[in-house]
């Protein structure tokens, strides 16, 4: 096991060579991952005044409802406009039908401020133009309700990319800020934006640390309601809190914002480097920065250390899922001493993942894409102590004697930041603990 942690030079301007010692392979075949519609499950909880209307088939309705199945709340802030035979054969005008359904929905739910029309595989295959529909409906309902559209279809988006498409569509709807010509030598008007859905409590913790560093006016996108428009212009610098936001980043860049390259805020190492990137960009004094990070870092180190005994030296295998695999693998390897057998990822964004790839132990086996049958064979051959995989594979593997960590929990639990580092480690130690406790 390699314990060398490459030195991270935070102020390098050039894009570092992304992990050239790693074996990154590609494979194609059956992909056992969700489509982007699944993002609606957490997005509708985060953006509280929005409603997500999938325009699709009964399969889409069934998926969203089954994925949300554990949530037994009164009435969800999502639904599906189910396309039927009449729409397909042209007996009914699909656009008129859609308008009718939207009117029905908005009459029933007067609390909606933003309506997302979400494209699906069927709506795309039949080329139903949802951007035209959104424009049309927007003209009818604005300003009471803003109508936007994005694609969450499986043919276009893999799981967490659904959030990327949603956030990108929100940014597109923001008015373009007039170009500011006033010079700003002291960066007094520089603003920091944090991008990617985070649990409310994580945002609040991060905000406290920023304030302690003297960075004020930090905004989080997406916000808790869709009416809030963050400042995005040439004076904006942004940190990605999540690794699946390619399109969102592109839109931000197009509006003049600058991305701060950093690893993701998972674990002590990732979170430290992430805050350090912010401090550097915002001109925070090193001493002030270190003081702000001191106590939280120590807490995180204490909390994660408790799990090291159990996880050290254990072999872990990642099936692809959320794009969080590489930062998670980095955290588990560097801070908890786990051995990485294979790290499967649906897709690697070479720039957004560059800092993470640098931090991975050399010669990490990374598989981009998936052929699930071959991957299952490789997994079994590797005899891992812990397998991170989706719920379609977890129980079958458990029944065969493998210990699994179900990957979706990582998307539905607060794991970012110092005060969650221990929780994140515990998510991986718990399956092993359980095995000890209840194994015959």
């Amino acid at each position, binding site marked *: 096991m390699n314990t060398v942690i490459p030195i991270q030079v935070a102020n390098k301007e050039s894009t570092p060579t992304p992990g050239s010692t790693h074996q990154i392979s590609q494979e194609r075949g059956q992909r056992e991952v969700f489509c982007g519609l699944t993002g609606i499950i957490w997005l509708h909880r985060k953006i509280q005044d929005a409603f997500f209307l999938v325009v699709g088939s009964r399969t889409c309705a069934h998926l969203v409802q089954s994925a949300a199945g554990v949530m037994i709340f009164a009435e969800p802030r999502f639904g599906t406009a*189910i396309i039927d035979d009449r729409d397909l054969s042209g007996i009914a005008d699909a656009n008129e039908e859609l308008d009718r359904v939207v009117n029905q929905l908005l009459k029933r739910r007067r609390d909606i401020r933003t309506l997302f029309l979400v494209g699906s595989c069927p709506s795309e295959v039949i080329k139903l133009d949802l951007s035209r529909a959104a424009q049309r409906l927007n003209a009818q309902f604005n300003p009471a309700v803003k109508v936007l559209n994005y694609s969450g279809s499986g043919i276009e988006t893999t799981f967490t990319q659904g959030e990327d498409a949603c956030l990108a569509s929100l940014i597109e709807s923001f008015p373009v800020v007039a170009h500011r010509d006033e010079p700003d030598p002291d960066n007094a008007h520089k603003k920091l934006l944090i991008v990617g859905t985070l649990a409310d*409590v994580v945002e609040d913790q991060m905000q406290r640390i920023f304030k302690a560093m003297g960075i004020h006016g930090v905004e989080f996108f997406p916000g808790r309601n869709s009416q809030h428009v963050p400042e995005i212009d040439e004076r904006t610098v942004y940190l990605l809190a999540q690794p699946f936001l390619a399109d969102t980043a592109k839109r931000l860049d197009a509006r003049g914002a600058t991305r701060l390259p950093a690893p993701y805020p998972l674990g002590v190492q990732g979170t430290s480097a992430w805050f350090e990137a912010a401090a550097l960009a915002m001109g925070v004094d090193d001493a002030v920065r270190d003081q702000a990070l001191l106590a939280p870092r120590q807490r995180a180190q204490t909390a994660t250390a408790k799990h090291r005994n159990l996880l050290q030296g254990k072999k872990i295998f990642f099936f692809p899922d959320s794009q969080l695999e590489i930062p998670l693998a980095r955290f588990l390897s560097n801070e908890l001493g786990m051995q990485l057998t294979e790290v499967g990822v649906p897709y690697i964004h070479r720039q957004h993942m560059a800092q993470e790839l640098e931090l991975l132990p050399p010669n990490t086996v990374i598989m981009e894409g998936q052929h699930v049958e071959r991957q299952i064979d490789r997994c079994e051959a590797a005899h891992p102590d812990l397998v991170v995989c989706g719920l*379609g594979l977890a129980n079958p593997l458990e029944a065969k004697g493998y210990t699994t960590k179900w990957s979706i929990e990582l998307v539905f639990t607060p794991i970012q930041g110092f*005060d969650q580092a221990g929780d994140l480690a515990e998510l991986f130690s718990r399956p092993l603990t359980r095995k000890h406790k209840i194994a015959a």
Partner: protein
Amino acid sequence: MQLTLWTYEGPPHIGAMRLATSMKDVHYVLHAPQGDTYADLLFTMIERLPRRPPVTYTTFQARDLGGDTAQLFIDAVLQANERFKPNALLVGASCTAELIQDDPGGLALGLHLDTPVIPLDLPAYQRKENWGCAESFYHLVRQLLKRQSANEQQPAGAKPAGPSCNVLGPTALGFRHRDDVIEISRLLKDLGIHVNVIAPLNASVSDIERLPLADFNVVLYPETAHTVASWLEREYKQPFTKCIPIGHRGTIAFIREVLALAHLPVNEALIDTLSERSHASWYAASVDSTYLTNKRVFIFGDASHAIAAARVAHEEMGFQVVGLGTYSREFARDIREAAALYQVKALITDDYLEVEDQIAELHPELILGTQMERHIAKRHGIPCTVISAPMHVQDFPARYAPQMGFEGANVLFDTWVHPLMMGLEEHLLGMFREDFEFNDESAPSHLGGAKKSPAHPSTETHANEPDTVVSPSTPHPSLQVQAPLALQESPSESVNLSGEQKMHELVQVWTHDAELELKKIPFFVRGKAKRNTEKYAKETGVSNITIETLYEAKAHFSR
């Protein structure tokens, strides 16, 4: 286009998946876009199957649509056949693949595999899950048996001596199918009838080939087996049962029917002995059960379960059936016939909003429905029991809990009565309405006793009331296991705190920020977080509890 907040059935290919997953040696190759693999979770997580559903998906993406998706499908068929070596291959398309018209059936047949290939044509924009299951089962059985007779083969194994039957209809992801099969198999055996084949649950291709050997068929679930049973009657002269063995009387009617089909004499003494397994009729006749008499009940579900439930409710429990409906349009006539018996108008709809409207209008005291009706019941504060698919993980209990047979009658009595206020308690509430603790707003004490969620403010059909804002209500204690703990924690906590304060003379003060921070912790662990923080503060001599204290405690206690 239909606005759908919840769908009662999945698309038809899910029905085909249920068939494939039920069987031991059948594999399904499904032409589908990336993301359709969500369906695997239905089996591994709701039913907790310890194996993968035997399905291979092509999971095509945008880049594939520009190229040869047909080749993708062919490769998938060849690889699946090679790897899994099934004894039959189902092939078909999900809704999106249907639109790209690759003809998976034709492509697979063109490969001339040794494995029998059964093409499935399941129109996704017209039909739904149960139909898809029934249709797939029919095509599988028909094709395998046709192949057998074309080859002039006889089914392996001899015709059973003595009367025999097949049991048709139980599937993977069926509502209590696992336990119903055990109960009814035992019953048939006790009646002297040999069970030849149970299909499709745990059946193999060779089992299907032995179907013709039995004298008649028991159709447990018409939704999945009616098409096959009708065909077997035409082809092999096998009659099939019409009685569904749900409830005490339903089970006895079923017994009489199978004895007749088996040409066995009716042994009343034996029936009496067998029926002693059910305590339900005595419990329903117990003197305290008069509180159940004329309780107004609304029933909705798949047709077979809804019709059976209405009969049990009316004839065995003394309830008053005020509403009866189904989402299975194929069985509309049966539901209407049943509804006429109780002088109610049948509700035939798959629109959850319509069901909700009718419930709001009727004010029932008990709802027997699906998980969808359970959502409605929570919002309206009405007791509810699930009696039909669609269902969730709680509807696959670890314990033996059939809906059918005499044990099923016991299960029905227990589960229907459980959410209701108990008789004597009802009396006391009625007599002493002003009680500050136990009043109309309380949930039954055996369910936690805390305040019920309020009934929905607008009892009119609120879908048409533009000004009514629909807001989520707090979960009904009877319907969420954890809620009673959380609801009870707050009042007792404050009592403890002041008690502790008095005892230890160390006044712990939470800063306002820390209190707000505490509220961000999910309610079901909040009490523990509070206690741990106060404990840690006391141990470290801190009297002013700040946010830092909260997180220091969290790190200190983290395991």
